[in-house]
């Protein structure tokens, strides 16, 4: 009797103690749900002393607000709702006034013309609830570069609040299209990420396709039909010079830079077979990576340069494959219904974007690099050519309407969409547009 009773009594004793311990423990509340709403943010006018400074200040704050709004993650408030006006960089904002209008963050700034004619723009980002400065920076640039300063400020704000680097100080190169469908004039064009500073890079005499930005930024590689032979070219934006990349016996296409910008990977079609080749831009040495009787094309490097995703019909239908950068270890990753094309590795490394064709429709989608987690973001008669923002958070692609027998329709436009599948927006271009390619963040060298 005693032997078992002792432990029982002991247990009972301990048990009677536990309630008190638990009762004394600190209260913990788990918050497991939230909302997904754009963050309300107040972008005040970047004032200045003179009228000219005020003018620039207003322009800058408008560009900042437009950038943030376009991201879909922020909701700039109408300045007419502001209670406190004429903020000074020298004094703290009256946070109470800003809380009243439900803003969570506040951007203030100032523009000043320097003696050498350049402008200096300071800004500060405030956390309205915590009443703390989150960021404060100053930029100096030629006055005509004011839009870039604004984009940089928007990038800084985006980065500080979301933790991810921004993508506003970037450019888009794309194919501008005009003329009737059977006699299309296609020109290489470039513009800021918000559609400003648009310019044409080629005359349109020769057909151009699939432009891709170099990570070093001054160069674009693309496909051009010169004398009816499709070849891969490199175009230098600064100098306007273009050159054929290598002298191959067949036709080359689907070019893309390696992440370090030192190599170009592309497809070469020869004797009825298409394989993937990589060319070292400095030594011009060419190496063949795939060797299969099927068509292997659309190669894209992973951001670490160790792997390559590409498109092949070696399994019977067009699917996405991944291999090591030396061409070994080829394995298929897409297994959904339909055909998959144009895989593009995210700069963040976690996802691969693609075009999918299924049941007579086109889709833009993303999947993990192992092929799992496929999600379709956009769908239409024709959507194609996904390209990643440098932060791997936003995609651009183009969409073409069906063309009708009377020759109408067939209009094609560029769109951007957030990785979450929300916030799809059209990018306005002067003419019709296709094949967008997003630049990396513009660096200051």
């Amino acid at each position, binding site marked *: 009797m005693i032997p078992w009773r002792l432990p029982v009594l002991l247990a009972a004793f301990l048990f009677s103690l536990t309630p008190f311990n638990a009762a004394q423990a*600190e209260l*913990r*509340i788990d*918050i497991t*749900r939230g909302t997904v709403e754009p963050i309300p943010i107040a972008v005040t006018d970047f004032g200045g002393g003179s009228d000219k400074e005020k003018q620039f200040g207003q322009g800058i704050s408008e560009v900042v607000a*437009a950038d943030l709004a*376009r991201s879909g993650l922020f909701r700039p408030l109408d300045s007419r709702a502001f209670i406190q006006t004429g903020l000074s960089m020298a004094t703290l904002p009256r946070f109470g006034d800003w809380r009243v209008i439900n803003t969570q963050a506040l951007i203030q700034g100032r523009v000043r013309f320097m003696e050498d004619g350049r402008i200096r723009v300071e800004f500060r980002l405030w956390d309205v609830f915590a009443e703390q400065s989150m960021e404060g920076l100053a930029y100096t640039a030629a006055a005509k570069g004011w839009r870039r300063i604004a984009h940089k400020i928007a990038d800084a704000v985006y980065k500080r609040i979301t933790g991810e680097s921004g993508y506003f100080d970037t450019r888009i190169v794309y194919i501008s299209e005009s003329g009737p469908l059977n006699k299309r004039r296609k020109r290489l064009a470039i513009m800021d990420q918000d*559609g400003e500073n648009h310019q044409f890079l080629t005359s349109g005499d020769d057909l151009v396709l699939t432009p891709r930005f170099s990570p070093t930024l001054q160069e674009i590689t693309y496909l051009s039909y010169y004398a009816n032979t499709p070849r891969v070219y490199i175009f230098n934006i600064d100098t306007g010079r273009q050159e054929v990349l290598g002298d191959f016996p067949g036709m080359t296409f689907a070019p893309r830079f390696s992440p370090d910008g030192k190599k170009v990977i592309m497809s070469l079609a020869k004797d009825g077979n298409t394989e993937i080749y990589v060319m070292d831009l400095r030594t011009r040495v060419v190496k063949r990576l795939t060797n299969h009787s099927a068509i292997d094309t659309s190669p894209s490097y992973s951001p670490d340069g160790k792997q390559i995703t590409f498109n092949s019909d070696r399994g019977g239908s067009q699917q996405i494959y991944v291999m090591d950068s030396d061409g070994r270890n080829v394995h298929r990753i897409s297994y959904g219904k339909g055909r998959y094309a144009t895989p593009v590795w995210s700069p963040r490394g976690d996802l691969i974007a693609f075009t999918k064709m299924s049941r007579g429709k086109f889709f833009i989608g993303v999947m993990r690099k192992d092929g799992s987690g496929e*999600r379709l973001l956009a769908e239409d008669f024709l959507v194609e050519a996904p390209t990643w923002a440098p932060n791997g958070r936003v995609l651009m692609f183009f969409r073409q309407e069906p063309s009708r027998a009377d020759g109408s329709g067939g209009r094609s436009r560029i769109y951007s969409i957030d990785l979450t599948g929300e916030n799809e927006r059209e990018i306005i271009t002067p003419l019709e547009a296709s094949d967008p390619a997003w630049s990396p963040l513009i660096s200051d060298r």
Partner: protein
Amino acid sequence: MSRGILTSVLFHLFLAVAGYLGLPRLNRPELLVEAPIMVELVTVDDVTNAAPPPPRPEKKAKALPPPEPPKVDEPKHPQAAAPAPAPAPEPKPEIAAVTPSPDAKPKAKEKPKPKPKAKPKAKPKPLSKLAKVKPRRKPKPPDTFASVLKTLADLKKHAPQPKKKDKAKKPKKKESFERQIARALVSPTSKFSTDRPLTISEIDLVRQQIAKCWNLPSGAKDAENLVIEISVEMNPDGTPRQARIRDQKRLQTDPFFRAAAESALRAVLNQNCQPFKLPREKYDRWRSMTLVFNPKEMFGS
């Protein structure tokens, strides 16, 4: 011999007495075990504070508390699901305002030389298309990542159905019963309230309040794994006096964590979601507390 018998009798007597005295102690804990179940039944609307246990003596009231706090962590909140569909009061007007960027255009005209009008305007149509697209993602529900965004999108429509099914049953059955208890207990509660822990329903209420103000870091890489703890010192009126992100070290080094932590902190400090609806008479219990922001569930796992 008789001596032996005597000692034996005495010894047995002693054992019997010891056993008798010991038993009652064993009994009480047993009651404890039952108690927690009763507590869970309580729901929000009775925050009159009568939340407590069955129509038993007050002693139990004290005993009940312990088991609750741990349970809180579980996704048991019956109502957590129901109210969520209506997030913030203003959300819809906001979204509308964002997309067309109405004010951007008027301003554009006043502008200097370059035309800084926000060019890309959102298209209303695509949204509906997207909505259609989403169903297609469903085929892979088990996938964490896939559900992330799906959840996000669906959230607005049919917010939280993911939870327990039994919630439907519970409220119905219990309501009237609870009310009775509530009425019956109104007076007794005041006696013990201070050190009584919060009921699940009371905690749920606060949870919902804060959830409305918590803006998730939705598309960020590995966002589902960012768990943020915030220590809060409360005023008796239910407003936070001081809130602090626990992991200060990571705050300095990890920008993603910092962004997520600050979003959680904003949720706590957002006056639109204050004061927290906590029972004042239990102030001692919530004077200082830890809020744990864990978005994992929102990302579908």
